[in-house]
């Protein structure tokens, strides 16, 4: 079946354009894109009334709590949240209980995902068994079973020899690894970024230098092994020169950042608000500004939600004891619109980081308007204002830092492989 989206504001991250036009899909793929008044024929015509059409978001690093903690998030709830948030592909994390570190668990997860989630789900697997940093996982089998990348998530592999072997082995299989750049000794026990705010509030803190040390070590290992590497989150100005140099030297390295680190800073924690406790901790405003610039310039490739569901019990605790992480699938787009409305990033720049670059990094054909690319698309209104009410989230967990925040930007419809999986009421 053909569907024509007319009167659309097309956000094309590949061309870097934001222009009026139409887009035609045929079956599950994009078949033509154009401007001008001459429209192709289609079985169904959708008048976008000037609203934006963009490639669906590809979100690297989503935690769905299956297996182990289904009460926090299931594939059904995460899938619904993703569809409503304009995320057409979720790339899931293996930091479940137990960790996804063997092909059998991965197959279980893939089956659950296919049954229950209306969006594409691509699983990542652990890099080391149990994410314990001692022995590498069966990277080959896991890759054959569909793992798109290998990561121990926020567990840093302390033993550099183990990590170098895992990198070398992954390299031989052409597997992508994702790491959390952090010096684990310095960051142990930290709940905030060291500085005036942490000192005032008496919170155990980590120096931003720990991130630079982490990325420095990892870069040396990338140089040694030639592995394809993605840093899950780069959040401090001090880590950027190393990243820039590594890219200039031709290493296969990319980096991401969570939407929270782009739109919030350490002061938002205010009176020990645990919904603002994330990992790594929120940074200073200077760091936030430097990271926005890095995204604009393309030094940081990917923006993700770092969706981490936590139940009320694990958040309603003193700040130091509370769990880290925030849900983000449904707030990624409206939060990203803050950066658009503040003039920090254009819509094509945002979708380059939220759709095109993550798709490219994973070797997916989506994330762009190319002919033959999967028709994973979203229609959204970047201006529509609303007040966030966390009880309306589709995620089972409601731990969003944007509760009661004034936001702008809402997804109107989401299409996966040409099928409408979400329509705003």
């Amino acid at each position, binding site marked *: 079946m053909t569907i024509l989206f007319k009167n659309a504001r097309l956000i094309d991250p590949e061309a870097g354009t934001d222009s009026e036009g139409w887009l035609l899909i045929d079956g599950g793929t994009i078949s033509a894109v154009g401007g001008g008044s001459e429209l192709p024929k289609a079985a169904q015509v959708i008048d976008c009334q000037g609203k934006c059409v963009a490639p669906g978001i590809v979100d690297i690093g989503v935690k769905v709590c299956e297996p182990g903690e289904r009460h926090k998030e299931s594939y059904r709830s995460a899938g619904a949240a993703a569809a409503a948030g304009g995320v057409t592909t979720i790339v899931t994390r293996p930091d479940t209980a137990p960790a996804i570190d063997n092909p059998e668990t991965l197959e279980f997860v893939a089956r659950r995902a296919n049954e229950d989630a209306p969006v594409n789900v691509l699983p990542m697997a652990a890099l080391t068994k149990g994410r314990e940093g001692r022995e590498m996982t069966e990277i080959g089998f896991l890759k054959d079973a569909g793992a798109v990348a290998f990561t121990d998530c926020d567990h840093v592999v302390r033993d550099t020899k183990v990590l170098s072997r895992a990198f070398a082995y992954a390299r031989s299989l052409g597997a992508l690894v994702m790491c959390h750049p952090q010096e684990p000794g310095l960051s142990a026990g930290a709940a905030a970024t060291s500085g*005036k705010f*942490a000192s*005032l*509030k008496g919170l155990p*803190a980590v*120096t931003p230098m720990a991130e630079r040390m982490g990325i420095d070590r990892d870069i040396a290992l990338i140089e040694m092994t030639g592995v394809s590497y993605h840093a899950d989150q780069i959040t401090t100005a001090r880590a950027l020169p190393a990243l820039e140099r590594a890219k200039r030297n031709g290493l296969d390295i990319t980096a991401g950042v969570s939407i929270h680190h782009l739109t919030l800073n350490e002061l938002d924690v205010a*009176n020990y608000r645990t919904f603002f406790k994330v990992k790594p901790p929120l940074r200073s405003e200077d760091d936030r500004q430097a990271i926005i610039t890095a995204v604009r310039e393309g030094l940081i490739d990917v923006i993700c939600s770092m969706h981490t569901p936590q139940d009320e019990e694990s958040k309603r*605790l*003193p700040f130091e004891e509370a769990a880290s992480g925030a849900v983000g699938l449904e707030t990624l787009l409206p939060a990203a619109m803050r950066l658009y409305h503040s003039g920090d990033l254009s819509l094509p720049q945002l979708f380059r980081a939220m759709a095109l670059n993550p798709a490219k990094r994973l070797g997916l054909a989506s994330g762009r308007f190319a002919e033959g690319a999967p028709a994973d698309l979203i229609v959204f209104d970047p201006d529509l204002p609303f007040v966030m009410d966390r009880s309306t989230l589709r995620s089972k967990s409601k731990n969003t830092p944007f509760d009661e925040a004034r936001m702008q930007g809402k997804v109107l419809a989401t299409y996966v492989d040409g099928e409408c999986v979400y329509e705003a009421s």
Partner: protein
Amino acid sequence: MTFSHSHLLGIEPLTPSDITAILDLADQYVELNRRDVKHSNVLAGLTQVNMFFENSTRTQASFELAGKRLGADVMNMAMQASSIKKGETLIDTAMTLNAMHPDLLVVRHPHSGAVDLLAQKVNCAVLNAGDGRHEHPTQALLDALTIRRAKGRLHRLSIAICGDIAHSRVARSNIMLLGKMENRIRLIGPPTLMPSEIGAFGVEVYDDMAEGLNDVDVVMMLRLQKERMDGGFIPSEREYYHRYGLDALKLNHAKNDAIVMHPGPMNRGVEIDGEIADDINRSVIQEQVEMGVAVRMAAMELLARNRRAKSPEVMA
């Protein structure tokens, strides 16, 4: 009288006139406490609950005595031994307690911000008796009262706070209070025990005692926790005493009439020389304990007053 707060969670939200109001009232209670009959009825009929999630003999005794002298019904709950061990969360404990309708809740907790969290969930007036490394407001207030009585004023003094600043809620509350009252504050300690960017709080930072103590009016020593003595933060107890322990030689750099303070309990021979601690001409450590009861009486009376003003039917 301007004190209008419903809780005493820290020094940070207080204004200089709030602080003066507490200290002025506390002065009156010092007199009461020195009489034969040490009793007032201003808290009669009210229930005060002391919840200590961290061991404390001195602070708990001080709060208990303060409440009893004002006529409150005082109950102590040793939280370490009770439900925490059974996995009950802080909020559940608070809600349970709240259902018993206490009027004043005195809380000490090992984590920064825990007392704030509790205060959001209960209907009574909450007094922070120390949360993690965040604040210990009544300690700062009793220190202020001690200084004001010894020096005749609480402004334009040069005050040195020495030792483990990083892990000290006493230091934070004192920096806040003494800063608000426009004193000159010096922090002295090894860099491993200094919080990051502490200079941003308008204090001068020294890592040398002789230099830092030069010409100060008040020397405030902090307790060095046992678990921080070995290797991690400082090389050894004896090297710490040598470089940062207060002895007569180091104290000579301060003004001749400088007073010596310590929040207790002291580690004699670690952060302070025993003789100095006992020197009645220099040490005001015993006065600090005395002022503690008076300041806590004053703080509780002011909070109870505001509570009555806000909900007269509850207190009828």
